[in-house]
């Protein structure tokens, strides 16, 4: 047993925990474009103060949080009825319905974001469709806007919302709803007082699985967003790959981690609790 614990502990300690210490060390250094790697070690909080005083970076933080939050809410509003319908479908049909939700996840994230590029493009398929149906004479271009990013996030992360919701809704005891109906509760009241509270663990898990990665998302804002919509994941990427400022990129990573530490801890607690309940 000791070996069984030690192997993953050591692996994750070396490849997951230790690197974060390195990121912190580098974040406290300063940019040194002429050396390899381009960092001068030291103890300076310059990178951190820049991230929270410069308007550009502040805007990126706020935009990321706003986009992630709205996308999470939209994904919940769409995903909840979907999970509910699958859980209420005939048991024999549930695996197929569930598989249809999971299938896109097994394809490719990049390809699924790419699929929207042709749809949302200037004079793309969506605009052609709107013009053809006469719904809009001069439809606005969607690609390059915050709308496109939110759409992309909802699309890419929808399976992560539906799966945990389905897991709790499927286990819901139908006799509770019958009892409520017998006692005179109307369907809406029964839903609000029984189904909704009992599915709360699924709601929390689904929202965290969408919100946490969405805050640090890079591919979607890069391919579907415009140059003026800055999200923090893209800022990190650009500081690192375009500007070669490893120290500042590390500081962004540390701040992002600090920002998401609460939600990540919440997710872990819930995950371990739901697994322990099964044993």
């Amino acid at each position, binding site marked *: 047993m000791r070996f069984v614990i030690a192997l993953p502990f050591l692996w*994750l300690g070396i*490849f997951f925990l230790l*690197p974060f210490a390195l990121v912190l060390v580098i974040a406290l250094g300063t940019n040194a474009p002429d050396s390899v790697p381009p960092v001068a070690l030291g103890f300076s909080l310059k990178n951190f103060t820049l991230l929270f005083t410069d308007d550009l970076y502040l805007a990126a933080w706020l935009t990321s949080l706003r986009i992630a939050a709205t996308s999470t809410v939209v994904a919940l509003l769409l995903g909840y009825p979907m999970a509910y319908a699958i859980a209420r479908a005939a048991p024999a049909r549930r695996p197929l319905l569930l598989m249809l939700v999971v299938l896109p996840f*097994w394809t490719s994230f990049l390809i699924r974001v790419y699929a929207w590029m042709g*749809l949302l493009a200037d004079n793309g398929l969506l605009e052609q469709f709107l013009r053809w149906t006469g719904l809009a004479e001069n439809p606005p271009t969607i690609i390059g806007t915050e709308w496109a990013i939110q759409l992309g996030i909802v699309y890419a992360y929808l399976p992560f919302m539906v799966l945990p919701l389905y897991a709790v809704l499927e286990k819901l005891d139908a006799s509770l709803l019958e009892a409520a109906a017998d006692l005179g509760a109307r369907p809406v009241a029964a839903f609000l007082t029984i189904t909704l509270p009992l599915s709360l663990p699924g709601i929390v898990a689904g929202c965290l699985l969408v919100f946490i990665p969405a805050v640090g*998302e890079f591919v979607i804002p890069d391919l579907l967003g415009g140059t003026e919509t800055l999200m923090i994941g893209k800022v990190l990427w650009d500081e690192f790959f375009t500007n070669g400022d490893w120290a500042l990129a590390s500081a962004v990573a540390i701040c*992002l981690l600090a920002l998401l530490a609460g939600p990540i801890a919440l997710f872990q607690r819930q995950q371990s609790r739901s*697994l322990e309940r099964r044993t």
Partner: protein
Amino acid sequence: MIGRARFAFTVLGFGYAFLYLPLVLVMLYSFNESRLVTVWGGFSTKWWGALFTNDAMLQAAWLSLRIAAVSATLAAVVGLAAGYALSRAPSFPGRGLFGGLVIAPMVMPEVVMGISMLLLFVGAERLFGGPERGFLTIVLAHTTFSIAFVAIVVQARLADFDRSLEEAAMDLGATPWVTFLTVTLPLIAPAVGSGWLLAFTLSLDDLILTQFVAGAQSQTLPMRVYSSVRLGVDPQINVLATVIVAVAACALVLSGWLTRRKA
């Protein structure tokens, strides 16, 4: 009750349309004559020919498949150990940290993991002179974030597992290792298998982590796709998308059929 169910099923239908319409259109336009992906210029298979003679793309795909196979296998071994420890060792020093370490990579923003792993490899290069960035570093990075997924599948399988079989083996004199190899492992093999498949898919699809830790020489399939897609829509990518969706659908149908036959 009826009204609510009807509403939910309507949303479900809309949800499926939302999920599949973009993919169907991408697949359809892989047979487009025109270079422009937004204009239909008639039926053609020329982009299919172009993709399957695109050496750079094929090499990248081959590299990605090799990386995915190795990292999924490593992740299956380490993830099996992690899931087993989480489920069978209720308390040991550092268990809280251990549980957190196992699950955290699942939700960690990829850009954060990417930069941290790159710094680790740069540090190792300075201290020990290696490993050189490329195949090995990509495999190590992919393994690290896939462990969580294998561990969770294994832990869930062990949670509804009949312990009396293991106890019987032990009573008959089998050592813990022998019991594990002859009783436990065969019974949880399907979970390890689906964990492996999950890790394989995640590795095959990863862009961000790979971009950070890959050296100048190694270009994986997602890196190729990304650099081509950045410049705009490209019919060859539509072909690739069609292939990927077809393979994923076949794999899912096959695994669904296998599990149903077993049940």
